């Protein structure tokens, strides 16, 4: 019974939870907090049931289908396979923890916050499990609205600007995607006599080359904005730094994957030739993003004059935003390589990046609780001296250990989730026919990005864990010693004197699952790849088969692809 409607339940649970929460009196903040987290926990438990499905084949599991709007041929159609399973699980795993760390920034209107957050969750699960293109589009759009309000109402000082920027950027991409969607549907209807948005059905249309490029470009633009791909990323640092931190967790860990998932689920399977022809460009932009993001993240630390870097928490979040953006570039390279290891690496990296970013941001959230008032968390205070992060290795050892593991994953150290995904992506890209003859340059560029990444991550790590501690710094500079007896209160410059209390047991629990996941993915990636392998293999087989079938003007690259029919086909 549950299994027959498992995905519908997953979509409905947060929405019903939101309805339930809207009935609570808005004063009952404790009930609202625990109620919403309880809803998301139930959601997580339900999602874990999905693992019992048969993922040894590429067939969609838990498939459910009902006609919705018959006039337009739109159906409610959901299902998961190896490509989406990990993302649904990631969404449901991250959400309760992200909500739990939100409340530090959210000082008013708790009820609306919880409702918006739960609606976001419903839309996300809907988007990841939709098998109907129109339904995917609707859920895709719907994820935007809660985020808009979450940033715009509960965000920092420049929240409205950031929220509007995010909305408009995404909206432009989505609307062009909508036009491409009509075009796709129309062509299908002309071929088959009736409308359908079933993604598996739509794949049967063999498009001429010129049309494929445009349609792929329209879809890819929407996904590239969401991911984001360089140079469409300018909304990202603003949104990440202005959003309340729980929302930032959701955006960085989950929402960004929606763009990559769109490429994997919609754009490439529907328009393989378009993907093939534009793939190298996208991959090159991905690599450009990796390198560019590394420089931008480094710049936040202001290497020439460290005292001027990282003035506020917004700067720190900006740094994390760029770091996260950089790692997303690998997803594009992997997906566009059209090689088994590249695509598998990308699916794994989506999860790996999700858990490590979630861990990092949750740790930052916990540290924010100790160090600053919520007003300052997002203040752009130019007059402040740089944030003093230091000395946590001695004062907060548990925090330091968790932070260390997380940052090592961001660095891409073998044995953590950051390594294996990127390694697979690069090894796939290196041998990728699709990216010839520039694959070596792409890999080289990406490796340079990794090295640059190491620079800022190590720099940050040093500042966090081994720099001068805040209390000693304040006494040495004599700047903050206004009233050292009141521990944990704000001083005149607006900063708090850190009480340097280590993480409590509950706080450790907030991070532990993600740190465990980082190590688990790093040490035993096969346990996850097992689920995605059959789907990836059949996805690639399908894409390659269709590349051979498509009537083209025989571009050179497609020929070379045909010349090596099944070199790397499923193991």
């Amino acid at each position, binding site marked *: 019974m549950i299994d027959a409607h498992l995905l519908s339940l997953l979509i409905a649970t947060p929405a019903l939870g939101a309805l339930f929460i809207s009935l609570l009196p*808005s004063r009952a903040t404790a009930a609202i907090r625990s109620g919403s987290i309880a809803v998301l926990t139930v959601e997580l438990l339900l999602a874990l049931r999905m693992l019992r499905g048969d993922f040894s084949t590429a067939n969609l599991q838990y498939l459910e289908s009902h006609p*919705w*709007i*018959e*006039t*337009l041929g739109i159906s409610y159609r959901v299902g998961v396979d190896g490509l989406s399973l990990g993302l649904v699980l990631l969404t449901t795993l991250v959400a309760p923890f992200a909500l739990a760390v939100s409340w530090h920034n959210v000082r008013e209107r708790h009820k*609306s916050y919880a409702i918006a957050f739960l609606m976001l969750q419903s839309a996300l699960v809907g988007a990841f499990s939709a098998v109907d293109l129109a339904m995917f*589009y*609707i859920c895709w*759009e*719907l994820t935007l*609205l809660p985020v*808009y*309000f979450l940033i*715009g*109402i509960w965000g920092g000082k420049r*929240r*409205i600007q950031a*929220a*509007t920027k995010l*909305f*408009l950027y995404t*909206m*432009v991409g989505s*609307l*062009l995607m*909508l*036009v491409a969607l*009509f*075009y796709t*549907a*129309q062509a299908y209807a002309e071929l088959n006599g009736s409308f359908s948005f079933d993604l598996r059905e739509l794949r049967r249309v063999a498009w001429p080359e010129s049309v494929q490029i445009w349609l792929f470009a329209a879809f890819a633009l929407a996904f590239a904005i969401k991911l984001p791909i360089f140079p469409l990323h300018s909304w990202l640092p603003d949104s990440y730094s202005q959003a309340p931190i729980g929302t930032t967790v959701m955006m960085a860990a989950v929402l960004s994957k929606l763009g990559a998932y769109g490429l994997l689920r919609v754009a490439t399977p529907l328009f393989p030739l378009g993907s093939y022809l534009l793939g190298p460009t996208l991959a090159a932009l991905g690599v450009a993003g990796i390198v560019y993001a590394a420089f931008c993240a480094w710049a936040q630390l202001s290497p020439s004059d460290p005292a001027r870097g990282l003035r506020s928490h917004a700067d720190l979040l900006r740094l994390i935003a760029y770091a996260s953006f950089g790692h997303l570039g690998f997803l594009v390279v992997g997906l566009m390589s059209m090689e088994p290891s590249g695509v598998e690496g990308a699916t794994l990296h989506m999860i790996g990046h999700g858990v490590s970013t979630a861990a990092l941001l949750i740790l930052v959230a916990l540290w924010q609780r100790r160090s600053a008032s919520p007003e300052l968390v997002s203040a752009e205070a130019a007059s402040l001296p740089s944030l003093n992060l230091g000395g946590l290795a001695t004062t907060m050892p548990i925090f330091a250990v968790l932070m260390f593991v997380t940052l090592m994953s961001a660095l891409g150290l073998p044995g953590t989730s950051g390594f294996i995904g990127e390694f697979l992506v690069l090894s796939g890209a290196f041998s990728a026919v699709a990216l010839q003859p520039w694959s070596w340059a792409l890999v080289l560029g990406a490796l340079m990005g990794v090295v640059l990444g190491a620079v800022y991550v190590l720099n940050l790590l040093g500042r966090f864990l081994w720099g001068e501690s805040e209390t000693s710094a304040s006494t040495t500079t004599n700047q903050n010693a206004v009233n050292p007896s009141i521990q944990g209160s704000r001083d005149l410059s607006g900063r708090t004197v850190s009480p340097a209390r280590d993480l409590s047991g509950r706080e450790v629990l907030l991070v532990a699952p993600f740190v465990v996941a980082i190590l688990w993915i790093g040490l035993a990636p096969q346990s996850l790849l097992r689920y995605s392998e059959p789907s990836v293999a059949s996805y690639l087989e399908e894409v390659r088969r269709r590349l051979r079938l498509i009537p083209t003007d025989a571009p050179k690259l497609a020929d070379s692809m045909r010349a090596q029919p099944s070199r790397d086909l499923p193991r």
Partner: protein
Amino acid sequence: MTLMALLPLLLLLAVAVAVLVADLFIESKDDLGAVAVTALLVAAGIAAALWNNSAVVLPASVRVYLAADTMALFTDVVLFGGAALACCLAVGYLREKRLARGEYYALLLLSTFGAAILSRAVHLISLFIGLEIMSLGIYAIVGFHSRDGHAVEASAKYFLLGAFASAVLLFGCALAYGATGHLDLASIGTAVQSGHADARLSLMALCFLLCGIGFKIGVVPFHMWVPDAYEGAVTPTTAFMAVVVKTAAVASLLRVLFTCFSDPSSTDTLSGWPSIVIVLVVLSIAYGNLAAVHQPKLKRLLAYSSIAHGGYLLLGVLAAARLGAATSGAVLYYLAVYSLSTLLAFGVLVLLTSRHQHTPDLRELRGVGRLHPVLALPAILGFLSLLGFPLTAGFFGKYYLLSAAVNAGGMLVGLAVFAVLGSAIGAYYYLKVLATMFMQPVSEHSLDTPLLRSGLVTSAVVICSVAVLWLGIAPSGVMRWAELAAASLGR
């Protein structure tokens, strides 16, 4: 009982006269408003009940002037339903502003009657008469707040330009008669199609008719009156105008274009009337959306947005020109959806009305959502529906319309992309309203008056909210009706 099919119209006429008379004796003007609302709802109900009643046929002498097809019934329901909701808003608003007078409701009913005639007209005479009955009533209720200089100015402006547009339309009718020797649309259509008509004269006639009707729809370049009239009129009148005038004018445009000028050479994209309409679409979408961006006054902002929506509607007309009149269901559906969304947006504005306050501009709306959390749902639904966001009625309206345009192919795909970019600009200013209400902190300029207390206003807002949400989730039924209605146009 031969006039059964016109029962809703006759009812409105009778009640309008009755209200005018009763106004002399009845002290409570709110009751008159309630009577008008009831009459409109009953009329809408009758129109809906006549839907599948094929036995209802008009005698031939009337059929020449007025249609009684499914399209007429569909537009009747939209017109009467929209007018009823606008009338609900008026009752609360006018009482709060101490403007309650009986003739308002009589004029509103008469205008709606005229609009229904206009949307049913299949003869140039009845078309002109319907247009005039509708317009005269509206000229009067735009300037209803006679002590307010803006209202009088708006009314005068609207009247002068409107009279001019009527003259142009009338001239178009005369030219059509000169070209074909007929006044009823079907005969004109036959004459044009068979080539008996003078081609140049009938082209002139088409242009003049387009100008006259385009003025009522409010598309660029016939839009000059829209911002002033929308701003100057009392808010419920603005809502009424946006809904009723637009619906009737678009319906009449569909009838004229697809009955008289539906032959292949007239509907050719480059040499026929679509080439003119393309210009109107591009100008309306560009101008309406761009002018709204920096508009601090909410009613003017909605006026510019209505110009842009006029452009979207004409895009649907273009699609139907290529795919056949029977596909104009998208336009009819969009009319219904646009009416609901606009009424909801104006409903929120009416709720914020207070006696000594002008209609709030954006600055005064800062943080108002924090003071009145109940406004959240209607305001978000209303503006997002105008923007065309999923799970609101507007989304499937836009979806249906744009997919028709893309299906028509050719140049219309480019226009659809243009419309989409226009609505991305639309997203900016609709969101600005929401951001102002819900994200900005309360400032000293913010409205701090309590919400308007009126059962009718509240229920209108609730009904619109539910309908917008419902059509955003399950639009199939209404879409089906719109399709059937459009099918009668294709015959």
